[in-house]
């Protein structure tokens, strides 16, 4: 495959799509809105198709291990492929809202998930018991605020002292919200920079190419 098709074409598609979306959102350019809508529909369709790609990719990866007969592992890979295609075929045949599918869904999948999370509770409790130590001022503040928020969130907290709920709300709404908002704003600015670099082809990591631009020299390598 030529470099044009492999690299330049995807870059061009990203550049055009990115400029269309920016043009529609920030500048209200006439005629761009309908094109932007088409780009969005295309994205939804691509996302739906990506699920097929994912199923095929999982199958291929597991098949490799099954064919190699990887010691102690291949039966699990086989089981994974069998289950994956069982759910796909069964889901396509009966539909995700059918009574039979829901029986399997609620009695196998939901029960398994609930069991796993149930076991996790015990690990969490052991974690509380063994690792929540007041080793300094910082850990002391963390444990104290955790206690206050916990007591403010549960019914028994109000019985002990009615002030726990307002205090917990204050911790969530003032110090916590302030720190979280700062984090979101910083993340958003970072994302803008990443988007800018991606749209204008300065970052090719999404294509599996690591490229650094330093002092006018371009270094390119495929991992």
């Amino acid at each position, binding site marked *: 495959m030529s470099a044009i098709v492999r690299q330049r074409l995807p870059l061009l598609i990203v550049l055009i799509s990115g400029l269309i979306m920016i043009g529609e959102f920030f500048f209200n350019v006439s005629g761009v809105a309908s094109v932007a809508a088409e780009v*969005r529909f295309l994205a*939804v369709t691509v996302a739906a198709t990506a699920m097929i790609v994912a199923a095929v990719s999982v199958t291929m990866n597991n098949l490799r291990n099954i064919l190699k007969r990887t010691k102690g592992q291949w039966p699990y890979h086989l089981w994974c492929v069998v289950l994956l295609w069982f759910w796909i075929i069964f889901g396509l045949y009966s539909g*995700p809202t059918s009574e039979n599918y829901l029986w399997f869904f609620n009695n196998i999948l939901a029960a398994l*998930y609930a069991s796993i999370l149930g076991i996790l*509770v015990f690990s969490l409790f052991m974690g*509380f*018991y063994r690792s929540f130590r007041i080793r300094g001022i910082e850990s002391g503040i963390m444990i104290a605020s955790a206690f206050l928020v916990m007591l403010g969130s549960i019914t028994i907290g109000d*019985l002990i002292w009615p002030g726990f709920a307002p205090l917990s709300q204050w911790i*969530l*709404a003032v110090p916590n919200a302030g720190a979280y908002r700062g984090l979101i704003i910083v993340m958003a600015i970072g994302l803008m920079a990443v988007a800018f670099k991606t749209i204008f082809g300065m970052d090719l990591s999404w294509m599996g190419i690591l490229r650094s631009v330093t002092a006018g020299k371009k270094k390119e390598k495929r991992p």
Partner: protein
Amino acid sequence: MMADFKKTMLRGRNVIAWLLVIMMVVIYLRPVGLPLVVSPSVRCWYTAASAMSNQSKPVLMVVDYTVGTIPEAQPAITVVTKHLMERGVAMVFVGSGVADETSLMQTVFNSVGIQKTYKYGVNYVGIGYIPGGEVAIATLGLEFQHVAATDAYGNPTANLPLTKDIKSHSDFSAVFDFDTVGNYPLWIRNWAVPHKIPLYSFVDASDMPMITSYYSVGQVQGYMGGIPGAAQYEVLSGLPGDALKSTDVLSITHVTAMILVVAGNILYFTRRRDQKE
């Protein structure tokens, strides 16, 4: 001394596990009935739902939770759906997080018995899961018929009486989001803030610190946090359910966790003092 401390800790693990199991089972079977204090964020949601009627525009019910969080999220969506059914409010169900949401939506329909009092296509519609993440959420608000061309049962939405006139976000009175996959910021970004659609969101207890920062500035009009939030809604609406049954267990387990932290610290400081001596 170190050996003694380790022995105490290890023995404690088994005792704690058994104590926890016994406490949870006993309290679940025989709830204490601890009084609930309703938080303002849940009251806001309840007030908004109570103000709706069969004349209101439909509510967009977002089923954005996973199979693993059914015990936490399902009581919330159940009580809100029942409350809206009492008021005769039309509902459109969608999912935007994971593909399981179509089955989860159907499970909700079956558990609340919506089919008995509501007519499909007229009073409620189940679109199911829509792939595409944030792009799909944004497009759903701009070109509803295009993204949700068919419902979960393959019926064209343009033929269903409830959805045939829905074109965009402005055809919904509110978004009620039941979220444990962390998608509520996407609804804030694409529906609540740019189009001023009231957004009410259920989140799991671990997401409460995050959603508070959106609630305090009015980007989320109301929220429920985990089982306690759903239990508060059950109290307000007079529709007791699974959340109320679980609140006592939750309270007692939280208190146990705090006692364990205190006990662990006492052991830790005792060990340190002994080592110094």
